[in-house]
């Protein structure tokens, strides 16, 4: 199968759906001329010039206007530039987009997407490195997609472009350039269906985004020690695939939840709670979480490496959980 990058996968998804659906348009800061700061829109450059719009630095309006445009019959895709700057327009998301359908007794359809980069990169420091997906799992009202491969990026995004509910998509900065197999034929990936990225029988690692790759690396390293790790990529957090996770735990009896966002209060805590509520008897050891230490992402490379989790943290957690934690 041919291989394309994560950002090309996003561009292709947009291109294919924009050809079919004239109500799709996209806007945000710095997307129309250089294809976005991480190149995600490069495949769209020169196509649909009036449907790719550079906007002022006005995040509350970028997000709030997506709601207005959706209510008025369009399908906007608004870019948040950096996940950290969602907060500068947060009220438009949590107080408007996520509430209006419910508040109006189900009158509104909201075919809109908010998307953009999150996570660490090469020393972007505390205001350009956050992963904040948990918040959108905590506050009800938006679907959360967080892909880890070009294949998943394209399939999930195409589904998002057909959703009548609002969707937020987190694209990890360190993934944009990775390559992976993506078929030429059109396909869609439904929300709420996890993908078992590696089958194993000793321990389950539930994860998303960059940490999928770190977990696969951990699994490979531990395979040399005879430990057989199953890596479950949730792909979407709202909704999340409880069944696949619990089935895996029934098989391995050990669970690790790994994410880049802070360990404390991160979405891993939610997964862990649900599993112990619903599958307690299948667990042979306490569930362990892997996440960033509870400080901000520091600038200096050795400090960033220390604060943000990687495959070694996953390996340590796996060894600990297999010792009975």
């Amino acid at each position: 199968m041919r291989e394309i990058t994560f950002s090309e996968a996003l561009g292709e998804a947009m291109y294919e759906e924009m050809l079919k659906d004239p109500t799709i348009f996209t806007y945000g800061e710095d997307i129309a001329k250089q294809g976005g700061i991480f190149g995600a829109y490069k495949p769209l450059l020169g196509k649909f010039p009036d449907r790719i719009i550079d906007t002022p630095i006005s995040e509350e309006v970028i997000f709030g206007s997506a709601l207005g445009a959706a209510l008025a019959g369009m399908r906007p895709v608004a870019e948040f530039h950096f996940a950290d700057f969602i907060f500068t327009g947060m009220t438009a998301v949590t107080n408007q987009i996520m509430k209006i359908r419910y508040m109006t007794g189900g009158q509104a359809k909201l075919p809109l997407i908010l998307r953009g980069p999150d996570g660490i990169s090469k020393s972007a420091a505390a205001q350009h490195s956050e992963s904040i997906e948990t918040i959108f799992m905590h506050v009800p009202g938006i679907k959360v997609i967080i892909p880890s491969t070009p294949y998943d990026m394209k399939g999930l995004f195409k589904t998002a472009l057909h959703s009548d509910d609002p969707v937020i998509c987190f694209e990890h900065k360190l993934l944009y350039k990775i390559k992976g197999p993506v078929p030429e034929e059109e396909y869609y990936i439904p929300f709420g269906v996890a993908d078992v990225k590696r089958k194993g029988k000793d321990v389950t690692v539930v994860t998303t985004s960059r940490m999928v790759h770190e977990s696969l690396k951990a699994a490979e390293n531990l395979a040399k020690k005879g430990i057989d790790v199953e890596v479950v990529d949730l792909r979407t957090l709202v909704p999340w695939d409880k069944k696949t996770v619990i089935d895996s735990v029934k098989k391995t009896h050990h669970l690790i939840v790994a994410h880049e966002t802070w360990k404390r209060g991160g979405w891993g805590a939610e997964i862990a709670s649900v599993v112990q509520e619903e599958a307690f008897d299948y667990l042979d050891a306490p569930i362990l979480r892997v996440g960033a230490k509870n400080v901000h992402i520091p600038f200096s490379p050795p400090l960033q490496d220390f604060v943000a989790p990687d495959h070694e943290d996953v390996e340590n957690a796996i060894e600990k959980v297999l010792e009975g934690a």
Partner: protein
Amino acid sequence: MDYSKEFLQGLYRTMVRIRAFDSKAEELFLEGKLPGFIHLYIGEEAIATGVMANLRKDDYITSTHRGHGHMIAKGADMKKMMAELYGKITGYCRGKGGSMHIADLSIGVLGANGEVAGGLPIASGAGMAIKLKKSDQVVVAFFGDGASNRGAFHEALNWCSVYKLPVIFVNENNQFASTERVQETTSVQNISDRAVSYSIPGVTIDGNDVIAVYEAVKSAVERARNGGGPTLIEAKTYRIKGHFVGDPTLYRKKKEVQEYWRIEPIGRFEKRLEKMGMLTDEEKEKIKSEAEKEVEEAVRFAEESPFPETATALQDLFVDDTGYDYY
């Protein structure tokens, strides 16, 4: 122009020092020696220099992602700045902030913001504190043309006008917000026109003319110190370098940039001083070589300094971290 040679050469020296620092930062970044992003102040030196010539050490500023020039003009130590760019423990922020967040609270720099317009509400609060303490300090909030389209800018102007706060809003209109030209995203011809909506004085000046900046800020500072409230000053300039080092700059032509190199602030001021007989070739060379030496020493200091111990990552969040769970 009735200024002493000492004063004029002081302005010139500050601009040259900023240029030397940022030229070096660019070079080091391109050599792969610096992590992160670097936003250069090259071509905008007259603004920080002309502003800061009006400020006392106890006056405050809020800086931006393009803040190296603000720091140098406010009196920062280049060694600690350079060490921060390298992510070393001897840097101003102990390696936690990097280029975008270099700050020195002891000289009144209330943070450098990676969030566009993030400093304007902070400057407003410092203005409130000054008013409540009945002191005669002032605050200068630096921000870009792009920042003037954020709600935080409009809310802060209204706020400072209503409470008559001693805040000077200095807009560095370098004509671009990353890849976007100011005209494409901004409803007014001059950003200073926006002052009218908030009933405060607004002026547009040539931001590449250090004396024009100095004089405009001087009257704003006098008014602010005397309880006259805020001013919006738009200093028009041009960002002759990319948005960040490594920016492919596909959004403009090389020729346009070359045109602006012709009116960059240092060369212009140099000619003016020479014409006035206020700067000899010898003095010029001395100022330049001193600046370069200062930068070289800063680089040496930074390179010889150690990286922070990983344990320091778990410091500096709280004053009292009793009971706090870092893991």
